[in-house]
């Protein structure tokens, strides 16, 4: 086994420069819940682990109705789940974070890691995609901001440059009368990976849907938006028939494969059911806010 170097820089600038030495084959270590297992299993390799948990910018956690949400890339899911204002403003994102692994895993795992690990079945990614979250990164060229949708490239891959560090994830303040929800199907109550995950944000004004975004997980190479399904709701009263139609349209956006967790056909069926349920949950929350 080759020698591994470990560093824990205290500043962003230092981290960027450590990552710049490509000869060392550096990798960013945040919660480590995926990376350490992948390294041990030989699925991924690294010569240098750059632990980013001591960088102040990556430990920011703020949520307010005015400024929205900022979650530093090193913030564990447990901190987000315990954050009262975050839970009130973004119940869907927080319920997704609370579904990841066990209590032990949530103490370490981060939203950023969930995103950058690039699993098509990541729970928080559809929730972030539905919220149209943005990612602030740092690299040799300075700071960049892009949408989560621009980061998603394929299984295990993102559009981040090798020397680019995800610094924080931002979500805009919820629009008036808008709320989010996330649910997944797993064969048991806890501790499993989504067969299908659905995140949605819905805005209600004057009893009608003013805007909607629906994101699907585990039914394509990356989390994906069900745009037709979302568009079908806009301007309509959010009744049973509207939800039924959106569920059916979401099915046609899904591009699932068959694997040990479920057949493609089963997944398509689940997309429709879960989309309806998630929309119903978001609607109920949005009504309470409207």
């Amino acid at each position, binding site marked *: *086994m080759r*020698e*591994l*170097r*470990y560093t*824990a820089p205290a500043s962003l600038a230092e981290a960027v420069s450590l990552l710049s030495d490509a000869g060392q084959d550096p990798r960013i*270590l945040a919660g*480590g*819940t995926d990376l*350490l*297992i992948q390294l*041990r299993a030989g699925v991924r390799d690294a010569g240098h*682990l750059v*632990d980013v*948990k001591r960088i102040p910018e990556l430990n920011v956690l703020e949520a307010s109705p005015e400024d929205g949400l900022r979650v530093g890339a090193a913030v*564990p899911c*447990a901190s987000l789940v315990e954050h009262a204002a975050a839970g009130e403003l973004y119940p869907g994102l927080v319920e997704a974070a609370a579904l990841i*692994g*066990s*209590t*032990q*895993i949530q*103490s*370490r795992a981060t939203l950023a890691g969930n995103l950058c690990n690039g699993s098509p079945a990541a729970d928080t990614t559809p929730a972030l995609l539905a919220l149209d979250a943005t990612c602030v990164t740092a690299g040799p060229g300075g700071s960049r901001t892009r949408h989560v949708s621009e980061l998603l490239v394929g299984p295990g891959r993102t559009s981040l440059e090798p020397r680019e560090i995800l610094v924080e994830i931002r979500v805009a303040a919820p629009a008036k009368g808008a709320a989010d929800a996330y649910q997944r199907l797993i064969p048991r*109550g*806890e*501790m499993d990976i989504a067969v299908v995950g659905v995140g949605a944000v819905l805005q209600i004004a004057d009893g009608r849907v003013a805007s909607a975004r629906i994101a699907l997980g585990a039914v394509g190479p990356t989390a994906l938006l069900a745009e037709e399904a979302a568009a079908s709701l806009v301007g309509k009263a959010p009744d049973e028939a509207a939800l039924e139609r959106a569920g059916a349209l979401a099915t046609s956006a899904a591009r699932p494969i068959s694997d040990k967790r479920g057949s493609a056909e089963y997944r398509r069926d689940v997309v429709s059911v879960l989309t309806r349920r998630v929309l119903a949950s978001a609607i109920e929350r949005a009504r309470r806010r409207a």
Partner: protein
Amino acid sequence: MRKLHVTAELNGEAVEFLCEPRQTLLEVLRDVLDHTGTKEGCATGDCGACSVLLDDRVVCSCLVLAPEVEGRKLQTVEGLADGDHLHPLQRKFLEHAALQCGICTPGFLVAAKALLDRNPDPSEAEVRYHLAGNLCRCTGYDKIVRAVLDAAAEMRG
């Protein structure tokens, strides 16, 4: 291989050790610091036998690299009892026969302590969800859940 020097707090006492970057906290606790109460079940973050508190949060020590704990506070099962006085959780595990082979027990105790530190009055469902990352192949879980609820009641007084 060059070793890293790490200082941390373990069960209230300052410790220092040398480790390789690849070594996990679990390996160092057991093999370097002689704290063998923490067990290895899977080494992949699935079973919870290796649970310890890191800065008051319960983590799988098999998924923490030893150098990551520099300057951090650690608590293991060895830190639960006060001398000969067992922690209420430990006493209730005995009373309720919440262990058989015992390999999962240190992990359950530490994870349960993390829960009660945050939530002194958990519901049965909360206990079950909180402990979902701790696997036991012997007891069937029910006695463990009862022991935790009983300990919580006693600790509330």
